[in-house]
């Protein structure tokens, strides 16, 4: 497949002729995509995250994505109990966890069955033959053993009885057979460390800390890790030794970060920057719960977390907190978002600051809880009764969640308005290396409460921002009543006057529009600011679009990429940007929601490129689409 050629090259594609291999026994690669797959009980997420840490320490750029089964404890050996973890790492910029894998590690037949389609033709397949028993083959739906029946001929197959090797390695620890078996993942990790020339020390440290209370388990895992590594040395597989040089990245202190943690930390930062306590109201829901979990660990920052009785109570608690002068935040996913609609309208009407984070998942209804989607954009824009405009932001990468969470708090408190921040399951659970910002470089949030009783009424507006005064209970002399009934523009009292209602609807809309003066202009991520084709994306499709556009440009195609992080209001120059291109393509993980907004707002013939399969875009899909548009 030609479109794969520019992927950070797979081990098997690199050859001395390409000048990528040095004389040392390790072959140099630009990068690789590795996927670990096994039963939920096989510890693949741990293997993946430890491999990720070592990759980061080796100085590569990277992106990861876990693929959890929907069931909590699916029966062992079944295809629906398979858990996967993919990492893309390279000596150059990495924007996505990668399309197809160069290396697939499968711990059992079910993992092979469900993941083989994602391995490149000719890719390296490492299989634990010890798990390919008749019973497991049957559970995975194999009539014959694929490791032996020739059906894997198109791949570079490396079969190892990892089960047996692990048992032998950890024997001296005295663990039972069952417990020893659980060390398989570290044996596998040891082998992968050998293949990519990684240092084992940080993982050994991690194991010792993690199992400090069970020293025999710690010891067994370390034994397994070392044995896997030693296996590489002794088995005759040295042609699989690779090196991926460091990526040229900006100097600084780095860490790996996932979207939900970044969102939570962004909220902590915003609360510190605004010097205001923060109250999170939340009700557990996949994939948003980790924001609740993470914030609950940081109460030292003046953060209160409330696990409410439902999503309505969660958003109402946030509104109550804002009313009383804290930063009210709620985090949820689709079904919870649907429940919050009425309360959101209350926050619009009472003009209270509120941050609502929707970590989108597949819908409608319960939909695909563990899968990603971007189909809540129009809900965020319009999903309330009445004219109820709110600001809508979207983070574009795991690390960007940090900055957009701060931005959401900044806009909410400055304009006294609800701000919806959209992320999704892919950002929430995906990770990337993140340059740790210096706290001094973060934006200042200047929040002021009204204290002056002179001439006060609750809907007095700042002439610049149109924000009303934030007057909190307990303030001497500012007693007032607010509510969801329409208010008189001039006094803040209840009003049923027809003209006043129109005026209030318009001023609430105008207030959101004025934020456009206060947000960055639209930039071009990749390419130039005019030409034949502009690919416009939003949210988590950033990496796939950017890489696809980059590859097409490398082929000489006239295409550029703009990524919209502010969806309401849209950046003030976006219309001009769109107007400078002959065609506009909008790939989204929905049936065309941003394209609808762009078409109606700017009257541009934006072409929708929808995908709604619970999966992110592959780079190749977008690349093919661009080529189809420009080469036909």
């Amino acid at each position, binding site marked *: 497949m030609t479109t794969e050629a520019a992927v950070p090259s797979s081990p098997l594609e690199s050859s001395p002729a390409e000048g990528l291999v040095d004389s040392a026994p390790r072959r140099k690669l630009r990068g690789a995509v590795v996927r670990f797959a096994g039963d939920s009980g096989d510890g693949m997420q741990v293997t993946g995250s430890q491999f990720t840490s070592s990759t980061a320490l080796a100085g590569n750029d990277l992106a990861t994505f876990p693929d959890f089964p929907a069931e909590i404890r699916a029966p062992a050996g079944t295809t629906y109990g398979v858990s996967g973890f993919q990492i893309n790492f390279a000596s150059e910029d990495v924007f996505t966890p990668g399309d197809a894998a160069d290396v697939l590690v499968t711990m059992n037949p079910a993992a092979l069955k469900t993941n083989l389609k994602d391995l490149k033709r000719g890719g390296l397949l490492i299989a634990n033959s010890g798990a390919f028993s008749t019973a497991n083959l049957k559970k995975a739906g194999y009539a014959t053993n694929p490791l032996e029946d020739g059906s894997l001929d198109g791949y570079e197959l490396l079969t190892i009885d990892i089960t047996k090797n692990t048992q032998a390695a950890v024997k001296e620890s005295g663990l039972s057979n069952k417990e020893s078996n659980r060390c398989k993942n570290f044996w596998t990790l040891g082998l992968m460390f050998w293949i990519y020339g990684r240092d084992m020390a940080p993982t050994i440290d991690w194991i010792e800390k993690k199992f400090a209370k069970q020293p025999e388990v710690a010891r067994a895992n370390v034994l397994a890790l070392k044995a896997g590594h030693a296996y590489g040395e002794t088995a005759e597989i040295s042609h699989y030794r690779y090196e991926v040089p460091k990526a040229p990245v900006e100097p600084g202190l780095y860490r790996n970060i996932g979207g939900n943690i970044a969102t939570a930390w962004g909220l902590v930062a915003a609360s510190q920057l605004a010097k205001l306590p923060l109250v999170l109201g939340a009700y557990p829901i996949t994939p948003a719960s980790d924001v609740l979990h993470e914030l609950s660990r940081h109460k030292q920052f003046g953060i209160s977390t409330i696990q409410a009785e439902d999503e309505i109570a969660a958003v109402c*608690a946030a509104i109550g907190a804002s009313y009383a002068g804290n930063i009210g935040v709620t985090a949820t996913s689709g079904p919870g978002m649907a429940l919050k609609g009425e309360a959101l309208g209350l926050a619009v009407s009472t003009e209270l600051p509120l941050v609502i984070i929707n970590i989108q998942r597949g819908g409608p209804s319960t939909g695909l809880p563990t899968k990603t989607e971007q189909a809540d954009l129009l809900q965020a824009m319009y999903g309330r009764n009445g004219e109820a405009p709110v600001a809508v932001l979207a983070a574009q990468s795991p690390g960007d969640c940090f900055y957009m969470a701060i931005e959401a708090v900044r806009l909410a408190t400055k304009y006294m308005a609800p701000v919806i921040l959209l992320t999704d399951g892919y950002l929430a659970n995906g990770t990337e290396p993140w340059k740790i910002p210096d706290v001094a470089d973060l934006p200042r949030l200047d929040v002021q409460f009204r204290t002056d009783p002179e001439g006060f009424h609750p809907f007095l507006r700042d002439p610049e921002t149109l924000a009303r005064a934030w007057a909190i*209970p307990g303030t001497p002399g500012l007693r007032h009543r*607010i509510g969801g009934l329409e208010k008189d523009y001039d006094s803040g009292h209840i009003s049923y006057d027809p003209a006043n209602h129109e005026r209030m609807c318009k001023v609430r809309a105008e207030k959101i529009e004025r934020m456009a003066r206060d947000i960055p202009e639209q930039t071009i991520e990749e390419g130039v600011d005019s030409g034949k084709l502009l690919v416009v994306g939003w949210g988590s499709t950033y990496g796939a679009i950017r890489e696809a556009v980059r590859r097409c440009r490398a082929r000489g195609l006239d295409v550029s990429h703009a990524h919209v992080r502010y969806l309401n209001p849209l950046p003030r120059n976006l219309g001009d940007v769109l107007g400078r291109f002959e065609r506009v393509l909008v790939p989204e993980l929905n049936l065309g929601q941003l394209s609808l907004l762009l078409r109606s707002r700017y009257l541009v013939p934006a072409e929708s490129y929808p995908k709604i399969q619970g999966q992110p875009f592959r780079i190749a899909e977008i690349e093919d689409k661009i080529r189809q548009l420009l080469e036909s």
Partner: protein
Amino acid sequence: MSNVIQPAQLTRKDFATDQDVRWCPGCGDYSILANVQRVMPELGIPLDDIVWISGIGCSSRFPYYMNTYGFHTIHGRAPAIALGVKAANPKLSVWLATGDGDALSIGGNHLLHCLRRNLDVKVLLFNNRIYGLTKGQYSPTSEVGKITKSTPLGSTDQPVDPASFALGAHGSFVARSIDTEAQHLTMVLRRAAAHRGTAFTEIYQNCNVFNDGAFESFRSKEHQKERQLLVEHGKPLLFGEQNDKGLRLNPRTLGLEVVTLGAPDASGNVVTEQDVLVHDETNPALAYLLARMPFPEFPVALGVLFAEQRPTYDASLWEQNERAKAAQPADLGALLRSGNTWQV
């Protein structure tokens, strides 16, 4: 907060707003408002530290008429809004005005959780056994067979008794009173105000437009004595024209029975005051029996049915936060640098 300086000087008038009160003439809400405005100045809480929060309904208009801070929110959600208010500022004195539909139909879930959490708020439930604002549909407290616009053939569903609901939800303070009985209502309001935790007070409120006379069978002068049992902690549970009727526990049925002092009971023994139960407001089992007495075989129990002191949600939340603050500095840079990092 300046709790110390202001008390006593405040009067009823200080609590009234300039807004026209928009309830129907004759509505029981007026007398509740008047009694609340009478009691509040006594509490010694500065006006600026009081917040009235309500949902939607006639009763939920209440905050507009109180010259304090006020938040008229959405139908059923006042306890949830209050949850956030108290989390942000537990020093505020927070009062909820709610109706039987608001509190027990659309907002039943929030009320349940407010009670079990023991959020430090006062809840006044205006029970008129009807949906007033939407013009007269039956409510979750309407009696079976209620004929309304939405139930022309009579309602068929079992009503819920607010006080026993509150007890079932582990409410730490459960009381009952009547809109027009000023003395009793102000007594109950004072008790509610003094309680730390969710002080749940059900007030029978006459909706003279859509459910007039709903409580006449025990509220009217002629029935009052015979059909109201005014409970008081430590006092025998006596009622009746001559105050000669009492409640006795039947140990075999674990139920209450009405007995008459000086008269022989079913087994021929003459009843004395020793036989009559003494009200113990800290006993949830007794409170439950009192709340659920069938009417008119038994009187309606009014007063503080149950009261216990237990930790409040907001105080516990703050304590936990304070402990976390004492244990660890709020160092944002350190948080961002925590865990695995590497220098490039």
